């Protein structure tokens, strides 16, 4: 029996990370600029490894398909065309501020123009070129909107309710820090806070109202769920479907020794999708 085809849905953070990591090795950044003033976040390194690994497996004739969706393209465009997000999500994680502030004026000029050309001008062009190499799936907007509701109510609302319950216990109870640390639920509380941070930031948390429909990560995952459902209906052999993201809201995280993988487990159970970050997906592909 033939192995199952693999469908790999790449979320915007993965595509962007891969492109950034590759551009970080541009000869324009040669010498001391590269090592002293810019850093490589781990997620970029693994995103690029993942994209390279996918190309390698395609070259070897392995039955896999990397793809993106309309929202992924839209989000990438939003990120690179918006001044605030460009600074916050792209340039800030890269630069080593304490070293940059010590640069002389002529060096600062060289640094500025190099960073501008590589990350503000070349990055969006390069990301577009990478995305063009992947398949793009058609999605039904109406159906996706229903999936977003379903996703929120089945996966995230119970977690938010749990977080609120734990928050009451730990933040309003007057329990000492030492006592909290020894409580096993406290690890779960910290993990949940970390996972739901992005969603909470975009919401009016105390009143229990979450404008989740405007949340890009949900929309992108709902498109992946839709694509998986469509493939199951249309393909002769059901594929192994992977949703790859480096965003905290989907990630398996470790807090004080506790592995928190509840989100990915529920998504797997409810929708049959494997949610992995770039690093874990590289490990899966290495075994092929």
């Amino acid at each position, binding site marked *: 029996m033939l192995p199952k085809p693999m469908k790999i849905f790449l979320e915007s953070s993965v595509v962007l990370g891969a492109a950034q990591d*590759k*551009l970080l*090795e*541009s*000869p*324009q950044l040669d010498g001391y600029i590269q090592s002293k003033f810019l850093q490589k976040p781990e997620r970029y390194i693994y995103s690029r490894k993942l994209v*390279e690994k996918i*190309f*390698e497996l*395609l*070259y070897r004739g392995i039955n896999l398909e990397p793809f993106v969706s309309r929202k992924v393209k839209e989000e990438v465009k939003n990120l690179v*065309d*918006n*001044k*605030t997000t*460009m*600074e916050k999500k792209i*340039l800030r994680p890269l630069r080593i501020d304490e070293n940059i502030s010590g640069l002389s004026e002529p060096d600062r*000029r060289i640094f*500025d*123009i190099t*960073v*501008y*050309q590589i990350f*503000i*001008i*070349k990055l*969006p*062009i*390069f990301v577009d*070129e*990478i995305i*063009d*190499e992947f398949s793009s799936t058609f999605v039904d907007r109406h159906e996706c909107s229903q999936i977003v509701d379903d996703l929120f109510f089945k996966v995230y609302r119970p977690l938010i309710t749990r977080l609120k319950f734990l928050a009451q216990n730990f933040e309003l109870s007057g329990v000492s820090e030492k006592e909290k640390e020894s409580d096993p639920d406290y690890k779960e509380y910290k993990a949940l806070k970390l996972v739901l941070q992005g969603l909470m930031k975009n919401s009016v948390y105390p009143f229990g109202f979450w404008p989740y429909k405007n949340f890009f990560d949900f929309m992108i995952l709902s498109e992946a769920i839709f694509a998986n459902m469509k493939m199951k209906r249309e393909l002769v052999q059901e594929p192994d479907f992977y949703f790859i993201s480096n965003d905290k809201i989907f990630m398996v995280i470790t807090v004080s020794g506790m592995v928190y993988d509840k989100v990915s487990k529920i998504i797997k159970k409810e929708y049959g999708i494997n949610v992995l970050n770039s690093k874990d997906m590289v490990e899966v592909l290495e075994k092929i």
Partner: protein
Amino acid sequence: MPVLVIILSNFNENKAVVDIKNAQTSTYKIESSLEQIISVSGQITEEIIGEFDNLIKNFENLANIFFKKFENKYFNQIIAFGAIKTTSEICKGLKNNLIAGHKSGENPIVAEKIIDKNYMSYIAIILESLGKVYDVGEINNEEFMSINESVRNLFKNSVQDKILEEKKVQFANKASEEMFLSMLRNFTNLKI
């Protein structure tokens, strides 16, 4: 001392406005000269090369002014200074391209390419946005998009037209680079 500072800052302010206006005038003059070359004269003249020199000089002045202006606004400094210097480099490339075209006798072909690919229009948009940025003292998202979109288009076109030489992105590990490139060659037309 404060008087001197005020005088100097006013001088800089006026200078920025003058440099932007001069650069705009040069841009329009170059554009109409290029159209003349295509439709009438068929000859690249000393005047158009001189106008490019003026344009480059104005961009270099603006680069210095904006670098100082945004000394304490780091991201603004990168955008303004980076965009101006990149545009200036592209102008130098365009000028050299015209000179080469004149030498090889391909005057109208070179001129037509510059007009067809809207080089001068993008430069005009950048100057217009820089004027607004200078007035407000801040790069808002609208100007960020307008400047970057124009520089990106200029950059893409000038790499395609070999006006600006883009260095190849290299991998640290040569073997992985070659493997990656061969994969891309086989499966894609990705330009890197």
